[in-house]
């Protein structure tokens, strides 16, 4: 569907890095006149604005939109796991399975004593999960640095940089997915009360 790109919709220059708060603030300001609740508002234009705001505040969607705009590939292309990510990929899978298994066992334990006996293991497994999340956060900082670097060089080297965007977007996407999966499992674990029903 041919729609305006998210950058021009919200009035930002098309570039790799944008400040999230600034984007949200612009969205809020524009909502004040374009939201369908306002006289002269327009649901279609608001929905487009809304989608643009989501895209620009998420590095994955923003980089993919920028890649598309620069003619550097589409979001659907099949690419291998980015270099340096294979190890994290395995770790994420392994940790997810361990968390699932532990959650199952803790849920099945039907007494306070039974659950308390699992406490040591729970501490260990949540610690490994947090350590892994720290690792992912470190990786994310690396990506953020790469992003600012690309952003700083964007004006002058965009033809060189554009082809690298899809891969950078993938890296952000993998990280976000793993962080989401581990956090979701940690949340499920905290939702089990210490004493059984």
């Amino acid at each position: 569907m041919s729609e305006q790109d998210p950058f021009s919709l919200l009035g930002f220059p098309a570039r790799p890095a944008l400040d999230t708060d600034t984007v949200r603030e612009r969205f809020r300001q524009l909502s004040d006149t374009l939201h369908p609740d306002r006289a002269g508002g327009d649901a279609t234009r608001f929905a487009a604005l809304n989608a643009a705001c989501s895209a620009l505040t998420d590095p994955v969607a923003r980089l993919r939109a920028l890649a598309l705009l620069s003619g550097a590939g589409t979001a659907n292309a099949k690419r291998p796991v980015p270099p340096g990510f294979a190890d994290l990929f395995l770790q994420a899978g392994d940790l997810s399975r361990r968390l699932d298994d532990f959650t199952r066992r803790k849920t099945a334990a039907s007494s306070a004593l039974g659950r308390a006996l699992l406490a040591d293991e729970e501490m260990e497994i949540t610690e490994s999960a947090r350590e892994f999340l720290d690792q992912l956060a470190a990786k994310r900082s690396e990506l953020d640095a790469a992003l600012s670097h690309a952003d700083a060089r964007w004006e002058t080297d965009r033809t060189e940089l554009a082809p690298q965007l899809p891969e950078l977007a993938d890296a952000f996407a993998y990280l976000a997915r793993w962080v989401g999966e581990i956090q979701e499992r940690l949340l499920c674990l905290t939702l089990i009360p210490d004493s059984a029903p």
Partner: protein
Amino acid sequence: MIAGIDLGTTNSLIGVMDSGFPVLLAGENGSRLTPSVVHFPEGDAPPLVGASALRMRALDPARTVSSVKRYIGRRFGELDAAERSAPFAVERARDGGILIGPRRLSPEQVSAILLGKLRSDAECTLGIEMRRAVITVPAYFNDARRQATKEAGRLAGFDVERILNEPTAAALAHGLDRGGERRRVAVFDLGGGTFDISILELHDGVFQVVSTNGDTRLGGDDIDAALVSFLHSEWSVPHDDALLLARIREAAIGAKHRLSDSQDTVLRLPFASGTSREMALDRAVLENLARPILARARPCCLRALSDAGLAAGEIDDLLLVGGATRMPMVREFARDLFGVDPLTDSNPDESVALGAVLQGGILSGQVTNALLLDVTPLSLGIETFGGLMNVLIPRNTTIPVKAGELFTNAVSGQSAMQIHVLQGERELARDNWALGRFDLPFVPAPKGGARVGVQFEIDADGILRVLARDTATGLEKVVEMKSAVDVSDEAVERMISESVEHAFEDVEARRFAETRQKSADLLGAVRTALTKADALLEPGERDRIEVLAARVGAALAAEDAPALAAANLALDESTRDLAARLLDQAMETALKRRGIL
């Protein structure tokens, strides 16, 4: 003029903007709260609505419908046993929907009677015709329940200008006078039948919902039911006496309300036979009954916080909404979860209605310093290969929103493709709510040659619209979805009725099997703990525990079900201290490992 209506499980309210301020209107008996109760007299006399119908509930329960909101927009197949055995008739409609009460009306029709009453009372007070309305719904209502509520409004003769989420409405009512500072607000809304938690960011008059969660089958009604069932067994009254049951319920509700202000109360029930029953009830008893019910709100709140990317301490204001938040234990529960004292300057019964009135003011242009940006509470997706759910619009996306998806033919010459639209958070398609199915036609083409774009739109009411777009002509057409009732409903229903029948057959056997399983778990845990945690035991504790464990063993051998349950309970209780010490030890070990201790 646009009316604002809070269509509640227990009470409903209506109001309008008056000289720039939201004002709620009193009904015929002088109260702003109209009980959401409809009584249908014998014959075809017009129904009684509100306070007069409420008075009939204890006298003629079978002809008096209350809590209709529990049923609106649902399928008969998803009702549980308690919902099917209401004091009034609850039947399956031919299309898989629900018919209730002595006149076998749909929940929409009964809700329309309530809305009609609010409307005529308001028209009477104001002396003008009311045609337009904003109606509130629980934030966690799905598409079907929003549509059904909108339909109820239409049946009552309203142009429904907006379906508004209750917690968002409450935030709007509360936050208007708070100037420009940026605040994060949690709205904890526990009503008669539904629970919502919404987290908002307030900034410069824009009320932006960040995340929402809830349980559309959790509310004060459940606490009433627990109390009724407790009184029932305390008084050992017969199970089939509907009239007595109805009167116990009214007495229980009264006692529950009194216990919000005092520590104890006396429940009195004059029996028809001339004798009467009396019982002293203190707050602790009610709280013990309510605790497991309230606990169901915890995962919703933690998930809402997690979705908002916030920790409990990062909430600035906690706003309590709904009558059930008058219970001191509910206030404490919310305060503990969010780490902030609840605001006390708003009326938990009225803020939703006031917000609905204000939203009416926004839509009519009378209120210009506020704007709501709400979200869709549930993810929207379609079924994809392998029966998985493919999310197109994730939960907590700001609405109105659109998502496009391009479909192509999988085989040469394929004439159509069936699209199954779903709402929910589960990975497997069949675990989610089926919104409907539609057939997408393809023009004859080789494999991958036919392409149709489909646009999924969630409007400001949180209601879905599907548009198919022909890529050749660019023409868009609204897709009519077949309701998913037809097939899947019967399957669901069969499943439920089978399990219900099953439960009645061997309830004793199953209970004993469960008790035995619990014994095995407990004895295993005790054995492990006594060897592993020797150092943690206090003098004499081992002997005490072993005596109780032996008692469990003896009851197991004797296959004595009641004795086994009692022995389990005693052993479970006696090991709780040890469990707490084990938890402390685990915490200490972990802290040492990290070098903190």
